[in-house]
C-alpha cells in the first residue's frame, strides 16, 4: 500500500511565546523547531502501517526550505520518500499561506505525485497544526481529492478494503469505517512515536528530496498581526509551604464548595 503523511514545521515554545517587532511572526531567535505534535504521531503511524502491511510511505510538507529538517526526521524513523513544497518570504510563494491557499497547493501537489507514481491508499494529516490551528487543511485537501475524511483519529486498523478509524467523544469511542482511498486526521495519543536511531538518522540523509513549487489561490482569511494574550494581573496567593499548608488548602476547598 501507499501512505502519504503531511506534516508542518512549527516552533517548539516553552513557557512563553514572543512575537517579532512587526507582529507578523513568532520570534524564533531562541526557539528550536519541531514537527507539529499530532503530525509526529501521524508519521509514526504511517511507518507502522507500512511495517505491518508492506508498501511505501511518503512525507510531504509545505514550508520554508528549513522544513527539510522535518522531512529528514520522518525519513529517520522510516518514511521512504520526501516531498518539499518550499515557500519564500517574497515572489510567487511569498505572503500569507492561509488555509485555502495551503490546501489548494497541497491538493495540486498530491494530484501531480499520484499521476506519476500511483494513488495513495491513505493520506494522514495531524488533527490541527500546533501554531496556526486552523483545523481545516486536511479536510479541504480530502474534499479536493473527493475522498472520505474523518478528523481526530486515535486508532487505525486496515482490512476488507477499508479502514476502521476510532475517535474519542464525550460519551465514549466512535468507530468510522471508511473505504480506501481515504484521508484521516490523526490525534496525539494514537501511538508513542519512536526516537530516531543513529542508523536511521544516517540513512535519512540519503533519501532523495522531491521539490515541487507550491501554487495555490489566496483565500478570504488574511492575517493582520499577531497579538500577545493579556498577562494575568493578580498575584498568586501562597497558602503555605510543605504539608503544613494542608489546612489552608482544605479551607479553600470548603470556600469553593468542593468539600461535600
Amino acid at each position, binding site marked *: 500500500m501507499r501512505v502519504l503523511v503531511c506534516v508542518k514545521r512549527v516552533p517548539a515554545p516553552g513557557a512563553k*511565546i514572543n512575537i517579532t517587532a512587526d507582529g507578523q511572526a513568532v520570534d524564533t531567535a531562541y526557539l528550536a523547531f519541531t514537527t507539529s505534535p499530532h503530525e509526529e504521531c501521524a508519521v509514526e503511524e504511517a511507518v507502522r502501517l507500512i511495517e505491518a502491511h508492506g508498501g511505501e510511505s511518503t512525507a510531504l510538507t509545505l514550508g520554508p526550505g528549513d522544513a527539510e529538517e522535518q522531512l529528514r526526521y520522518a525519513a529517520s524513523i522510516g518514511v521512504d520518500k520526501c516531498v518539499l513544497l518550499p515557500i519564500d518570504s517574497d515572489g510567487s510563494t511569498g505572503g500569507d499561506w492561509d488555509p485555502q491557499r495551503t490546501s489548494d497547493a497541497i491538493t495540486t501537489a498530491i494530484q501531480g505525485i499520484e499521476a506519476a507514481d500511483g494513488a495513495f491508499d491513505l493520506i494522514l494529516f495531524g488533527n490541527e497544526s500546533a*501554531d496556526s490551528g486552523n483545523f481545516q487543511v486536511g479536510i479541504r485537501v480530502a474534499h479536493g481529492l473527493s475522498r472520505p475524511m474523518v478528523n481526530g483519529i486515535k486508532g487505525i486498523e486496515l482490512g476488507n478494503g477499508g479502514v476502521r478509524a476510532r475517535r474519542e467523544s464525550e460519551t465514549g469511542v*466512535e468507530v468510522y469505517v471508511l473505504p480506501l482511498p481515504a484521508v484521516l486526521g490523526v490525534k496525539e495519543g494514537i501511538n508513542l512515536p519512536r526516537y530516531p536511531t543513529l542508523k536511521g538518522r544516517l540513512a535519512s540523509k540519503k533519501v532523495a528530496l522531491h521539490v515541487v513549487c507550491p501554487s495555490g489561490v489566496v483565500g478570504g482569511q488574511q492575517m493582520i498581526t499577531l497579538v500577545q494574550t493579556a498577562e494575568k494581573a493578580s498575584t498568586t496567593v501562597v497558602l503555605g509551604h510543605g504539608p503544613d499548608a494542608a489546612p489552608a*488548602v482544605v479551607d479553600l476547598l470548603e470556600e469553593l464548595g468542593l468539600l461535600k
Partner: protein
Amino acid sequence: MTILVVVEHDRGSLAAATLEAMAAARRVAADLATDVSALTLGAAADAVASVLAEHGADTVHQVHHDLLADYGPEAWGEAVAQAVRALQPAAVVACGTDRGNEVMAQAAARLGAALVVNCNTIEVSAAGDATAQWTITRSRWGGSLLERCTLVAPVKLLTVTHHVFEASTSPGAGSVLPLPVELEAWLARTVVAERVERAAGVTLSTAPLVVGGGRGVGSAEGFASLEELAGVLGGVVGCSRAVTNNGWRNHTDQVGQTGTRIAPDLYMACGISGAIQHWVGAMASKQILAINTDPEANMVTKADYAVIGDLHAVVPAITNEIRRRRAQA
C-alpha cells in the same frame, strides 16, 4: 441576512457549547441589525428547538434525513453547505469543538469559502452593508497567542473558541421551519458505524475538580496519592504531556493543547512546570492551585493559589486533613 448557528448535538442531546455560539451570534446579529436563526440536523434534534428559542433563535430550521440519524462529518458538512445556499445567511457560527470545527471545515470546503476557526472577538465595521469590514481576533497556539485577521467572503463562516463566550438566555420567536436537503447515499461512508459507550460519570472535560500531575510526580506509581485525593473529592486525575511521553499514564488523561481542555471549578496542578502546551489546556479553569517545589515555575506564577513544597508530602497531607475534618463533622 440572518446569522445562522449550526447546532451541535449527539443523537438529540444538545452540546452545551452550542449555547456559546448562540451568544456570539446574537452579538454579531445586533451589530448587523439582523436576527439569529439555528440549524438542527436530524429528527432527533427537533426537541431542542425550545432551548434554542430561549437562547435567541427567531427561526429554527430543521433538517430531516436518514443519513443524519447519527453523526457523520461529510453528511453534516454537506447539509450545512446546502442550508447556506438556501438561506443565504450573512454569517454561519458554530462552537469550536472537535465536531464544530470539523463540520464547518467540511461545509467551507464544499462552498469554496473561507472559514475562520476559534474566534474570540468579531467586529463588523458598517452595519448591514455589503462593504462591511469583518475583523476577527482568533486563538492560535491553543489560545496562548492571538491573531487579528480580516475575513472577506460572501458568507462568513466562523467558529468561536470554546469557553470564551458565555451562554445566556434571550428569548427569540423560535418559529420552526423544515429545511429540505438532498444527500447522496455515499455520504454514509463517514457516518459513525459503531460505538463503545463509556460508563456514565464525570470525565476530565466535565469534572468540577481535576488533580493534575506532571514530571514532578516522578513515576506511574507516584500518581497513587493524586488518585486518592481526587477520589475523596469526587474529582478526576489529569496529567501533563511529559507524563504521557514517559508512559506513566494514558494519553486520555492528558490536559493540554494536544490533549483535553479542562474547565473545572478548581484545578490542582501538582509538580507541573506550566509549559504553553499544558497551560492552554488548563487556562479555562475557574481557579488554579499549584503545588510545586519551585516558586518561580510558570504554573505557580500564573496560578491563583500556590503551595510551595514537595507534592509527595503536600498531597497526602491534604487528603488526611479532609478525612480528619469529615471524621469530626
